[in-house]
């Protein structure tokens, strides 16, 4: 019974993610692409919950859906640009070449995936993936990368202010 529910949830979330991915690259209006991105991110958050990664799922909703997509929408509204991609591309046959390359890449990855052994998943403790468990690892083993990440954030904020200020 539980297994059936899990399969249904996985199917729904996977279908949502795929539909959103198609929406991102096929929508004419950037706003629709941004909302499709939101659909992908939400579906992936559901999959993270299935994979016992509740902290990552919450982060996904807060950082990606809450901040990044809103930022995208903000810029789209701010620029208020012409949205069409009317004129012919400067590179001839770019689109068919891109499709062929993507299909070839997918075939290579599928060939690799065929060799992945499907061993049963490891047994995990109850608190696997909680904010407490991930946080403990972040602040012990990975405390140096954590502090470096804060440096990167500061640099990013300063860079955004400097670039966004424009010419004086």
């Amino acid at each position, binding site marked *: 019974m539980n297994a059936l529910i899990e399969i249904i949830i996985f199917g729904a979330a996977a279908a949502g993610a795929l539909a959103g991915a198609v929406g991102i690259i096929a929508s004419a209006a950037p706003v629709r692409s941004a909302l499709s991105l939101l659909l992908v991110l939400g579906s992936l958050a559901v999959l993270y919950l299935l994979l016992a990664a509740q902290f990552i799922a919450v*982060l996904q909703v807060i950082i990606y859906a809450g*901040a*990044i997509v809103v930022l995208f929408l903000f810029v789209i509204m701010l620029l208020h*640009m012409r949205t069409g*991609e009317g004129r012919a591309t400067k590179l001839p046959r*770019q689109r068919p070449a891109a499709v062929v390359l993507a299909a070839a890449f997918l075939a290579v990855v599928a060939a690799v995936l065929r060799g992945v052994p*499907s061993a049963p998943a490891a047994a995990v403790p109850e608190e696997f993936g909680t904010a407490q468990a991930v946080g403990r690892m972040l602040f012990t083993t990975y405390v140096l990368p954590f502090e470096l990440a804060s440096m990167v*954030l500061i640099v*990013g904020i300063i*860079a955004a202010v400097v670039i966004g200020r424009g010419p004086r």
Partner: protein
Amino acid sequence: MTIPVPYYLALSAVLFTMGALGVLIRRNALVVFMSIELMLNSVNLSFVAYARQLGGLEGQVTVFFVMVIAAVEVVVGLAIIVAIFRSRDTVDIDDVDLLRG
């Protein structure tokens, strides 16, 4: 965990391919950027799936750092796109071709 890991990996691979396809065929800089986000997210899914499969939290910690870097990347990238729009009045990447010679 009823669903075996290869299913998650296959989904991740398809999402990554779609993101790459979006980068290659779209010319709106904002949509290209969203496709890059899609690729980052598909890789995150593989990391989380293997974290669960192997029973270690390192994969989830990696995803945390990817999210931090992705947030910075979006902020700086969107600032650059806004700056380009200010100076050239377009976000079509085919129109930004100063390096083309």
